[in-house]
Structures are given as C-alpha cells and as structure tokens.
C-alpha cells in the first residue's frame, strides 16, 4: 500500500521512544535478543524481573491492540523445517553477535557505534542473499 511508509515511520518513532525510555530511565540498551535471553538468566533477580516485565509488555500489548488497530497477520511460513532452522539461526546468531535489529540496528547506529553499523550491514546483506537463495533459487519461501 502507498501509505505503508507513514505507518512505518510512526511505528519506528514509537520503537525509538521505547529505546529512549529504557536508556534514559534505567540506563539500559534496548536490545530485544538480550532482553529475551535475559529471562533465562536468574543470577541478578532485579534485572531478571525487569527483563520479564519488558518481554511481557512486548507480548501482551500487541495482543490487546492487534484487532482494534486492524493489524495484518504475520503471513509466516508454515513449513516446519524452514521455521525451525530460521529460529535456531536467529537465536544462535543474535547471541553470538550479542545483538539484533534493535540492539545493533536501532541503538547501535544512533550511537554511531562501529560494531552496530558493521553488524547491521552483515545481517542485511546475509538476509538479502538468504531471500534471493531461498525464494528465487530454491522456491522455499
């Protein structure tokens, strides 16, 4: 749709505000992969509770708003093998690189972090090659 970029921009500003709240409030970088992984680390109870609070809100708020805002379905693949391999690669890769689209992308680039910029270039390039390979050559997606 031609209006999609406006929704993208508005949603993007909200995402940036979320990162700004977490940074200026709690002094923490908003990286989704780190916060999700943090729910399984119980060494620091206080940090663990914060991670749980963040991820819970990330789960429940979309659940409440998806119908009133008429949000499109995910259109995700139904191929079990594709989903399992993709999930494993995303989980392993984001832990090894210590960040994903929010941590390296949003929070890293806005800080002019070389690590964030390098990681973002690497995963966008790999993602583009992945789509070309799995969609146009193998027809899996």
């Amino acid at each position: 749709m031609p209006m999609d970029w406006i929704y993208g921009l508005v949603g993007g500003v909200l995402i940036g505000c979320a990162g700004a709240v977490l940074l200026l409030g709690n002094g923490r970088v908003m990286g989704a992969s780190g916060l999700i992984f943090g729910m399984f680390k119980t060494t620091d109870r206080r940090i663990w509770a914060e991670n749980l609070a963040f991820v819970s809100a990330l789960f429940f708020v979309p659940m409440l708003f998806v119908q009133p805002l008429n949000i499109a379905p995910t259109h995700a693949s139904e191929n079990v093998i594709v989903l399992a391999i993709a999930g494993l690669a995303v989980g392993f890769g984001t832990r090894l690189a210590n960040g994903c689209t929010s941590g390296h992308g949003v929070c890293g680039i806005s800080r002019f972090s070389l690590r964030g910029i390098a990681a973002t270039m690497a995963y966008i390039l790999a993602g583009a090659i992945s789509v070309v390979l799995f969609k146009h050559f193998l027809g899996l997606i």
Partner: protein
Amino acid sequence: MRIVISLVAGALFGLGLIISGMTNTKKVQGWLDIFGEWDPTLAFVMGGAILPMAVAWKATRVRTPLRADKFPAVNTAGIDRDLIIGSVFFGVGWGLAGLCPGPAIASLSFGGSSGVLFASAMIIGMLSTRRLQAFFRKAENITKTIS
C-alpha cells in the same frame, strides 16, 4: 520504578512493531528482496527509530539515568569474528522466516503455530549458543588438522 519503566518501554516497542508492519513477514522479506518486489518500509521504520534514539544518546552526555547510576559503556571489543559470523547467521534466519527477536515475541499472540514454533526454536538457539560455538570450534580444528 525500574519495573514500570521496563513495562512502558516494552509496551511502546510492541505497539511500534505492530503499527510499522514489522510483524508482517512479507514486509520484512520484501525489504530484503532486492530482486523481487522491493518494499522500502523497513528503511522508514529504522530511520524513524534512530531519530529519538539519537536524541537520547545526546542527552546521556549531560545527565544521568533516572533510575540508575550510569549509562552503559561502549563495547570496546571492536569488529570481531563473533560479531560478523553471528550477524550472518542471524541474517540468514531473518531472511528465511521474515522474523527477528522483537517481532517474534510481539506477534506470538496472533501468529498461530508458525509463530510459536519459530519463537521456540529461537529460544533453543539462544540457550544452546555456547554448545554450538564449541561444536563449530571443534569442527574447525578437525578441518585444520586434516588440511
């Protein structure tokens, strides 16, 4: 108070992700699909998110966090192998499914069994990172010995 701040941030993040269309795998894969019907939405999402974050990073120079002693230090590791190899793995999975960690959780309530399967595999991947790393190191050493 720190819990409330985390809740507010998670809520804003979730809202932003569904409004921007980032929980729709077709839009994400459309952005990566440079040889297909390319969709520029993700660039607007990134740009929109970077603006308030850049202001926030500027503010960290002149003030302290509301509910913490100091701001997070810059990671001084530089651009190393784990960063690039990890990001390549992440990118391949991201392209294949059209989901990254944030949207995977944000869409979990309405993404059906596909969403549950992806998120479960992602968490298993996160929790087995150390073991997988050791496995790859071993494989690398064996290939080195052979050659």
